[in-house]
């Protein structure tokens, strides 16, 4: 796992995200899959919250470093009743965005 330093947790640590972006770009450089929650917050709303820039910066850095073939895959996670035992969950996979 790669730590993300949010201003809402500790504003003094936010600059350390540069290291995390480096690490994420290196992970992509190995051809791995990286999971990220780009809104940077938990919520149950059915509408999108503000997207943070970290994911885009990381992907662009990986591309700058020579990583080719990066695909960004949007996922929608939906729960019937997320706290209820034996309820249902749905995952909708969107069309991948090819960075090349």
């Amino acid at each position, binding site marked *: 796992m790669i730590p993300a330093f949010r201003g809402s947790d500790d504003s003094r640590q936010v600059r350390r995200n540069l290291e995390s972006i480096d690490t994420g770009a290196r992970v992509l450089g190995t051809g791995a899959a990286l*999971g990220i929650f780009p809104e940077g917050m938990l919520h149950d709303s059915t509408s999108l919250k503000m997207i943070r820039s970290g994911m885009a910066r990381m992907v662009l850095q990986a591309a700058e470093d020579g990583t080719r073939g990066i695909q960004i895959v949007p996922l929608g996670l939906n729960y019937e009743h997320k706290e209820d035992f034996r309820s249902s969950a749905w995952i909708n996979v969107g069309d991948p965005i090819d960075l090349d």
Partner: protein
Amino acid sequence: MESGQSSLFGNLTRRAARFLVAQYYSRIEIAAADRIPQSGPIVLCANHANPLIDPVLIGIAARRPVQFMAKAPLFAYPVVGQLMHALA
């Protein structure tokens, strides 16, 4: 990073988490799972409703090891932090 991805403890933890979530939810449906490439660099971007379950669902949908970004304070929690380092 790759060594961590293939560590025995990390693999066992991921398998256990996926098994438990599959028991917890009676039905997990994945629409268009074939859109997730099975090789090459990918970024899986999702909404975030459940801090513990969401990463496991993404792992189930991806059918391949997934590294996650997670908020830094989680790494300092007892047990949870150790698990997260093991999965790193």
